[in-house]
């Protein structure tokens, strides 16, 4: 009988139920969208922040003190320590390997740039065999990776390089291909030396002024690099070529790592050496920038890993603020959704006064009536909540794509929260009118007063 009454109520007044269900579905849909976007937004923004560049710097522990001014290291070339390139794939084996989105090793040196002698000045035969330095002073050369394929121990490959860690570097032309003898030239250097894309340059130590063409490695300029900083004055070439030029095979000096992190709180800033075992475990299981630095240090022997404060600090502050803002806003949206759903379920109870009156006149107790109505509302909450969730996922996709260019993943937690919320607000919304309904005297209602 009970089930028949519920089924009958749905069958008899499909439009009313549809209306309440629609309000519920819409409210819950909007709540789903708000919730999934804000659950996802931290990760999206963290990714966005990676456009600011690497947040970790790896240097050799045994290194001598860098004498760096304005991006140029004034140490003698043979001073200082280096790290082995062969260790780098280990970065993708640490606990936080999924958080490491890019890394690029750097090897810097100095070299003189030689170009073809313009044939007008000298006789044509000599220009075939000799080169002239473009400038007497040597320039910085930076060996690094670009679109470099790292083979990992599990057989997969990971493509990374300086183009990923420093996305603000603008290349006019294209990046060098690591397998062929190609390079990029900084914008200021290119202007000064009159270099252009497609030209061939030769790199060598500061030797005699005229040098044999065949004795120097030749590089094709594939692009002009603009960074608005010291790299504008340098030649950027594949790491392997730089290692050959500076006679440091398989070595690099600095490594930039770009990692997705959680904003540091007071706990994250603590020194791991002063923690007890439980705290240390909790600390190393949160992707704080310092705990990622700590786990990188453990796989790269002899390396010192430091947080680039300039990037990490600002990122942490802004992420914390934006997250808080979004939680507040999501809270407001959930509250508004609850209010909307509550109001509509209240309306549906008030509407059925006559029916309640009749049931009571036929001998139903307040409890039975309340139970029946609550069961109907629950059924509605399930259906409405489910539809709302589906609707909300679509809405979240639209919003996510508009704002971040990527849709948030549907998550089971959101579904559970939404169904619970739907049940909660429908029951809460109908509680007050139900209480009133249970106090109805059947006679005046049936008389239509």
């Amino acid at each position, binding site marked *: 009988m009970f089930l028949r009454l519920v089924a009958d109520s749905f069958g008899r007044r499909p439009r009313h139920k549809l209306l309440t269900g629609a*309000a519920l579905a819409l409210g819950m849909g909007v709540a789903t969208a708000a919730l999934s976007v804000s659950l996802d937004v931290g990760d999206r923004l963290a990714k966005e922040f990676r456009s600011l560049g690497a947040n970790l*710097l790896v240097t050799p522990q045994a290194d001598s*003190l860098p004498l760096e001014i304005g991006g140029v290291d004034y140490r003698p070339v043979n001073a200082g320590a280096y790290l082995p390139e062969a260790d780098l794939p280990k970065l993708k084996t640490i606990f936080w390997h999924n958080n490491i989105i890019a890394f690029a090793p750097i090897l810097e040196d100095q070299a003189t740039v030689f170009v073809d002698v313009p044939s007008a000045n000298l006789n044509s035969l000599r220009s075939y065999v000799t080169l002239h330095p473009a400038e007497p002073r040597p320039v910085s050369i930076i060996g690094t990776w670009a679109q470099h394929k790292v083979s990992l121990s599990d057989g997969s490959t990971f493509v990374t390089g300086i183009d990923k860690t420093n996305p603000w570097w603008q290349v006019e032309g294209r990046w060098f291909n690591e397998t062929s003898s190609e390079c990029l030239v900084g914008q200021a250097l290119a202007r000064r030396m009159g270099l252009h894309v497609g030209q061939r340059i030769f790199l060598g130590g500061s030797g005699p002024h005229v040098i044999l063409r065949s004795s120097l490695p030749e590089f094709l300029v594939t692009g002009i690099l603009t*960074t*608005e900083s010291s790299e504008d004055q340098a030649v950027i070439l594949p790491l392997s070529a730089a290692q050959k030029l500076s006679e440091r095979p398989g070595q690099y000096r600095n490594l930039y790592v770009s990692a997705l992190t959680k904003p540091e709180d007071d706990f994250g800033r603590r020194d791991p050496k002063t923690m007890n075992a439980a705290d240390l475990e909790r600390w190393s299981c949160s992707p704080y920038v310092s705990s990622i630095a700590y786990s990188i240090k453990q796989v790269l022997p002899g390396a010192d890993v430091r947080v680039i404060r300039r990037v*990490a600090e600002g990122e942490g502050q*802004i992420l914390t603020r934006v997250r808080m803002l979004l939680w507040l806003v999501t809270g407001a949206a959930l509250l508004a959704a609850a*209010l909307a759903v509550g109001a509509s379920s209240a*309306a549906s109870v008030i509407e059925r006064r006559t029916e309640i009156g009749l049931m009571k006149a036929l001998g139903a107790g307040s409890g039975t009536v309340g139970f029946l109505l609550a069961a109907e509302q629950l059924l509605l909450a399930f259906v409405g909540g489910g539809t709302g969730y589906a609707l909300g996922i679509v809405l979240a996709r639209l919003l996510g794509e508009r*704002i971040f260019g990527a849709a948030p993943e549907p998550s089971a937690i959101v579904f559970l929260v939404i169904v619970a919320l739907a049940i909660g607000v429908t029951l809460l919304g109908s509680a007050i009118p139900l209480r009133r309904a249970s106090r109805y005297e059947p006679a005046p209602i049936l008389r239509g007063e």
Partner: protein
Amino acid sequence: MASLRTANRAMFWRIIRRLLGANRGRLFVMLLALGAGAAVTSALLNLQIDAKRRLTTEFRAFGPNILITPGPDPQRTWSPTLPDSLVASVASALPGKDVNAVGFLYVFSNVRVGKLHGPGPYDDPSKLPLRAVIVGYSSEAFLHLLPHGTLEASQPLGYKTPLCYIGASVALRLKANARDSIALNPWNDCFVQEVDTYGGPEDSQIFVDLETAQRIAGLPGAISLVEARISGTSQQVEEATRAVQRQIPGADVRAVRQFTEGEAKIYNRISGLLTATVGIVLLLTGLCVMAAMTNVAMERKMDVGLMKAIGGSMRRVLRLFLAEAALLGLAGGVIGAALGIFLSIGLGKAVFGVAARPRLIVYPVAVVLTVIVAILSAFPLRRLASIRPASVFRGEA
């Protein structure tokens, strides 16, 4: 004729009053929904306008965004410098802007450390000096300019000896701690005030006041470069860069691309999120009012039937209900916007740590939006048009 219209109008308002007063509970729910919607909308709109300013202030943590270096130098001197009076002219080139400009002078020197309550810098002749970069700063504001973490700090010592701030790598190599003294060269000492970590070249530098650095370098009145932080969007930074360049034609003024581009991107994302939220909140407010209005439509069948029966045209009846909705929207909007002022202060404090400055333009916009939402959500009342008085009075429908 005039008196009839006056009477009509008086009747109109009387009916509206009665309609509003009929169900206090529902009136409260609708006002609550509209008020909450208006409050959240105005607070978020306010926050959105304010967020621009706040976030650009927040971006301060990214360090300097303008770099001024000596321009191309025809004589090709080995170490070109700038006059230290330039620092002041950066601020004067940008009147009314929040500028933090610091001049730096770089000089190499061999340094030694002397421990607190221990051997002095020259007590152990076997110890070799360390070659390091000494950086003179024109103002202590450089600590706010360059983001860092402090590893060790000493109480202010109050001696006449200059203070220095040393990078983590220097401290490690020298085995120096806060309050140790460092001999920058045989004639200049300093006390270590702080050991800081930057994650950049600053880690291997020793920061002292500009005069000491100039004395060590033998370059009185000279600086190597100026780093400055100007709060603003990337366009504002670009404009500021041009303004400074005009003021100082000899130097090379550049915006630091790494951060200005990223900042603009992040700002756009956040602003898009806030706009989406305002839309969501308005939609939800509409839903809430619509639910209440559906309720109203059910309850008022009798009233409408009666109105129609005594000759009210459907247009006039609907106008009555729309006026009611608009009035509700106006009341909810005004109450909500007033609450929104406090809400935006609270939100601003919670999110950015500082109260958002109220913008007057936001409140009328929020009220108008709420009225529009209220009128649009009176849509369910359309069903009243199909009511036939006779069947209502017979108790069918």
